[in-house]
Every structure is written in structure tokens, then in C-alpha cells.
């Protein structure tokens, strides 16, 4: 169960986190609580995995080269192939999805050549072809996501 303070922190501070010497103190003043209470509430949100972190969200393609990859893997081999794929440090989101293309992950590498080398390597090691779908255009400037926390 989220406390009222945790709910405010989750919904009101997905962006514009203060860039000041003591940001948690600034938030505390805005919310009428102590800096210690803000730090404790964030620590609890972290520990319970309600947030994955507090920090900068980077626009895609700002660091190195990246792509979204899809693979169609037989169900009985999915776990083994997923484990192989997840073991690459260049892979950072790996999801199973309900579709003929049932394995989806994001690859981020230092440059385009390294990205292609990893794609080739994954094909070679798994024995399945990869569908590489790099970003052409992004339409949404992510400023956070309004959360319905009534039953969180």
C-alpha cells in the first residue's frame, strides 16, 4: 500500500526533479514534510520496486546505436534462447510477447558496426533469424505517465 507521500512522489516527480544542491530538501519543502521523510519514502519505493530509479531518462539513439529486435522461436526453446539473448550486455529490455514473433528485445551498442556484429552473433548462436526494427521517428516526448494509484 502506498502512503500519500509516496503517491505524490510517484505522480508529481516523474519530471522536473530539482536540480539544486539539496533536491530532496526542495521536494520536502514543496510537500510540507522533512527531507528525511522524502529520502525514506523514495528508498521504500525503490526497495519495493514501485520505481526502477530516480534519474535522467535518455532520449533513444543519443548513446551509440540501438534497435528493437524480434525473433520467432518455438515455445519449447524460448527459455533457452531468451537466456542466451539476455546474457549479452548489449541487450537491455527483453520481453516475451504473445505472437508468432514471441521474443522482443532492445539492443544498444557503441556504434552501428558493433550492433550488427551482435545481431549476427545472436543469429549464429541461437540458430534463428532476427528482425531488426530500428527507430525511424519518435512521436512522443516522454514527460512521464499519469498514474492511477487508487489500488496500487
Amino acid at each position: 500500500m502506498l502512503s500519500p507521500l509516496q503517491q505524490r512522489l510517484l505522480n508529481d516527480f516523474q519530471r522536473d526533479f530539482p536540480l539544486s544542491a539539496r533536491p530532496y530538501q526542495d521536494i520536502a519543502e514543496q510537500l510540507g514534510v522533512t527531507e528525511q521523510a522524502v529520502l525514506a519514502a523514495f528508498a521504500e519505493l525503490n526497495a519495493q520496486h514501485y520505481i526502477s530509479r530516480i534519474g535522467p531518462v535518455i532520449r533513444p539513439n543519443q548513446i551509440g546505436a540501438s534497435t528493437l529486435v524480434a525473433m520467432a522461436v518455438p515455445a519449447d526453446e524460448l527459455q533457452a534462447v531468451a537466456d542466451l539473448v539476455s546474457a549479452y550486455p548489449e541487450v537491455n529490455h527483453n520481453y516475451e510477447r504473445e505472437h508468432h514473433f514471441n521474443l522482443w528485445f532492445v539492443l544498444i551498442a557503441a556504434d552501428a558496426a558493433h550492433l550488427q556484429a551482435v545481431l549476427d552473433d545472436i543469429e549464429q548462436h541461437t540458430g534463428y533469424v532476427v528482425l531488426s526494427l530500428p527507430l525511424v521517428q519518435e512521436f512522443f516526448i516522454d514527460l512521464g505517465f499519469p498514474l492511477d494509484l487508487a489500488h496500487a
Partner: protein
Amino acid sequence: MDATDLALMRATQAGLPLVPEPYQALAEQLGISAEQVMARLVAMQAAGSIRRIGAVPNHYKLGYRYNGMTVWNVPDAHVDALGAQIGQLPFVSHCYHRPRHLPDWPYNLFAMVHGKSLAEVDGQIAQINAVLGELNLGGEVLYSTRILKKTGFRSG
């Protein structure tokens, strides 16, 4: 982004330190001043390299169990205009134009939607359908059934 910016981004991907002076803690790690850390974050945000700075919620843990990747085939000539409209829908967290991969993959517009029930997501998909109208040449929704890995740099 220069090498120090990159080092700063790497240092923050696990999260800002939960200490009273987090930028000072990062500054010490990077060998620059806290003022420089903040100035670099301001500059990267102004340049658009940083989208936002704040709490990154874990939607799944917060009850958003239905996370659908909706994919659509729309005429290339209209993908920018349609993408801009879809991206503005409040329940869409990401919206991208990606290349088709014919014949296996005919879809060129991706929109991620999030709901607490299947019915909620169905309603969201109906709204996307309404925006696309006759320019919708086909679509599908791919639900994630398992998160197999989620670490490192986040793209959004």
C-alpha cells in the same frame, strides 16, 4: 554529449544517490564539481538528449499488468501525422515509426499502451483505431507475457 556527459549518464542509470546532496556525490565520483554536474544535466535536457529527470515508475508493479505493444500498418505518407496524434493520447507511453520488414512484418507504427485490465486496454485500442480511421491498413496488439531482462540504459 562529450565523454564526461556520457560518464554522468552511466553513473545515473542505477539512480541518483539517495543522500541529501546527490549531485555532490556524483561530482566526487566523476571528479568535477556539483555545479558542473547540474549544469551538464540542464544542458543535456535543453539539447533534448535527456527527456526528463525524475522518478521512473515500474508500471507493472503499480498494477498496470496489461502492457500492449500495438503495431499498425499505415500509409508511409501519413505515418508522421498519425504518429503525432497517437503519441498525444494520454495512455500511450511511447510511439514510434519503425521500418516494415516485408513479408513477415507489415507494421510501421508502434504505440505502447498500458492498462490495469484487458477491458481498459481494449478501450485504448478502440481509441487508436478511431484516430487512424480509414488509414488503418491493419493492426495487432502484442501483450508482454514475461519480462526476461530489464537493466541498463533505458530508452524511454
